[in-house]
C-alpha cells in the first residue's frame, strides 16, 4: 500500500505540521484567538531562512531568525487586535495579506531553491542513516524539544496567566494579569512556532515558495481537531501530544488516500481530502455519541 519512502515522507511532514498545530493550539485553544496569520508566517519563516542560507549564514541561525520574524508577524496581528481594537479574525487576515508582499520583498522573487545549499539537515546525512530517514529523526527531536519547552511554559506562572486570559479575561484582569500583553505574547509565540515549521519545511523540501502557506491554517486545524478526537485533551501535556499525533495521523491519512489507487484520488485532490477529513474529525466525536444514545434508547 504505502511505500517506505511515502511512509517516512508522511512522518516528516507530519512532524513539521505538528509544530504548526502547536501554534494553532496556542492561538485557537489557549487564547481563543482565531488567528489566520499562520498562512503568512509559514512562508515568512521559509523566506527568511532561505534568503539567509543562500547568503551563506549558518542554517540554525537562519532558522532562529525565521522564528523571530514569525513572532514579529504574530505580534503585529495581536497588536492590531489589542491596541487598535480590530476584530481578531480580521486583524489576522490583514497581517496574512500583508505578509504575501513582505515575503516577496524578502525573497526578491517568488521562490528560492535550496537544493545545493547547506541546511540544518546536511550534517545528519553523514551519520549513516538512510536518506529518507534523516529528516524524520531530526524533526522528531525538534518536535519533542519544542513540546517539552511548551509544556513547561504552559505550566509556569506566565503560561497559567495566558491560559486564564483565554478562558476568562475578566477574572484574569481581576487577578492582576495584563491580558493585552498576554494575547500579544501568545500570538507571537504561536506564529514563531509556525515560522519554525515553515523554515524546516523549506529546508527539507529544498525550496521556499511564496505560495507555500496557502491552506496551512486548515492543515493545522485538521491536525489539532483530529488529535483532540483521538486523544481527549484533559491536560496541557495531552493536548500538546494530541497536536503531534493528530498531525502525523493526518499526513498518514492523506498518504493512504493518495496511494490507494482503487479510490482514484490524485495529488490535486489534496485540499478536498483535507476539507473532508476536517469535517469528519469535527462531526465524528459527536456522531459517536448520538449513535450510542440511539442504542441506549432502543
Amino acid at each position, binding site marked *: 500500500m504505502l511505500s517506505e519512502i511515502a511512509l517516512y515522507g508522511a512522518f516528516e511532514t507530519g512532524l513539521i505540521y505538528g509544530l504548526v498545530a502547536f501554534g494553532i493550539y496556542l492561538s485557537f485553544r489557549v487564547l481563543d484567538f482565531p488567528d489566520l496569520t499562520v498562512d503568512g508566517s509559514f512562508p515568512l519563516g521559509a523566506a527568511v531562512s532561505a534568503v539567509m542560507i543562500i547568503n551563506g549564514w549558518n542554517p540554525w541561525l537562519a532558522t532562529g531568525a525565521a522564528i523571530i520574524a514569525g513572532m514579529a508577524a504574530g505580534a503585529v496581528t495581536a497588536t492590531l487586535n489589542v491596541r487598535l481594537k480590530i476584530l481578531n479574525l480580521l486583524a489576522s487576515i490583514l497581517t496574512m495579506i500583508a505578509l504575501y508582499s513582505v515575503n516577496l520583498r524578502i525573497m526578491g522573487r517568488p521562490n528560492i531553491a535550496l537544493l545545493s545549499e547547506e541546511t540544518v539537515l546536511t550534517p545528519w546525512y553523514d551519520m549513516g542513516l538512510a536518506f529518507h530517514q534523516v529528516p524524520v529523526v531530526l524533526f522528531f527531536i525538534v518536535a519533542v524539544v519544542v513540546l517539552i519547552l511548551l509544556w513547561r511554559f504552559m505550566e509556569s506562572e506566565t*503560561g*497559567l496567566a495566558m491560559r*486564564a486570559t483565554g478562558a476568562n479575561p475578566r*477574572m484574569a484582569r481581576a487577578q*492582576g*494579569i495584563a491580558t493585552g500583553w498576554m494575547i500579544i505574547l501568545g500570538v507571537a509565540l504561536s506564529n514563531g512556532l509556525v515560522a519554525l515549521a515553515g523554515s524546516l519545511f523549506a529546508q527539507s523540501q529544498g525550496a521556499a515558495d511564496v505560495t507555500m502557506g496557502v491552506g496551512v491554517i486548515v492543515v493545522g486545524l485538521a491536525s489539532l481537531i483530529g488529535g483532540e478526537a483521538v486523544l481527549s485533551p484533559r491536560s496541557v501535556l495531552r493536548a500538546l501530544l494530541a497536536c503531534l499525533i493528530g498531525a502525523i495521523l493526518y499526513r498518514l491519512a492523506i498518504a493512504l488516500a493518495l496511494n490507494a489507487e482503487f479510490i482514484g484520488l490524485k495529488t490535486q485532490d489534496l485540499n478536498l481530502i483535507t476539507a473532508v477529513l476536517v469535517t469528519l474529525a469535527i462531526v465524528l466525536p459527536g456522531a459517536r455519541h448520538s449513535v450510542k444514545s440511539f442504542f441506549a434508547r432502543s
Partner: protein
Amino acid sequence: MIAAQNLRLTFGKGTPLENPALCGLSLTVNQGEFVTVIGSNGAGKSTFLNALSGEVLVDSGVIEVDGEDVTKLPTHKRAGRVSRVFQDPLAGTCENLTIEENMALAIKRGMRRGLGTAVKTRYRDRFREGLATLNLGLENRLGDKMGLLSGGQRQAVSLLMASLNPSSILLLDEHTAALDPRTAEFVLDLTKRIIREQEKTALMVTHSMKQALEVGDRTVMLHQGQVVFDIAGQDREGLTVSDLLKLFEKQRGIEVTDDSLLLG
C-alpha cells in the same frame, strides 16, 4: 481604606441612550470597615464597584485606595490592592483550569509572574489547608476542573482565592444572589469569617435590606448614582427594614417601589 470623591460616569455620552450611572458619588470607607451597599436597580451599585476595581474608568472624580490615587489605573494594576468576588459564580474562576491552578493564579494576584512552575508543592499545602476550612471536601480534589464544582462551591473557592494574599480591599458584588438560600447563607458566613479574620476593608453590594442591616458595620444606600443614606454604629443597631425604608423616603421624598428591596 477607600476614598471616592465626587465620582461621575455617564454611559453612552452624547447618544440618545445617554445614561448617567454615577452622579457625584462620594464615599470614604475606613480601614477594616465592612460596609453593605443597597439600592434599587440602576442605582449605580455595580458601576460603583466596577469603578473601584478599574473595570470602568470614571469621567471625573478621584478614587484613592490606601491613600494612593488609582483613578486612572486599569484593573490589572489595581489587583494587588483590590480583590473581588462576582455575582456570577462562573465569572470569578476559570472552569477549564483545575482548582489548584485557579488558586495558583490568585496567590500571585498583583505580583510579577515568572517562568517558575505555577502550582508549587508548598502552595498545595496552603491550598489544602484553606479548602479544608470550607468543609466541602474540596481539599482532596485539588486536581479537579473548576467546572465540576457547583455554584456555591465555586463562590466559596472564589472567596478563598480573594483571601489568599493580603489585598487591602474586598469587593463583593451580590455574590450570594445566584445561590439557593442555604448555600447563600453558607457563603455569607464564610464571607463574614474571612473579613473578620483578615480585618479586610470590605464593600458588599446586596439586594436584601435585611442582609444589609444584619451584616457588616455600616450600611450605605445608593440612589440615582449618589449616596442618599449612610448609617453606622448605634443608629444602625435595632434598625428594621421598614425604618430604613421610611428614612429613605423622608430623605429623598421618593417612594420605593422596587419590590426586590422589600423582600428577603
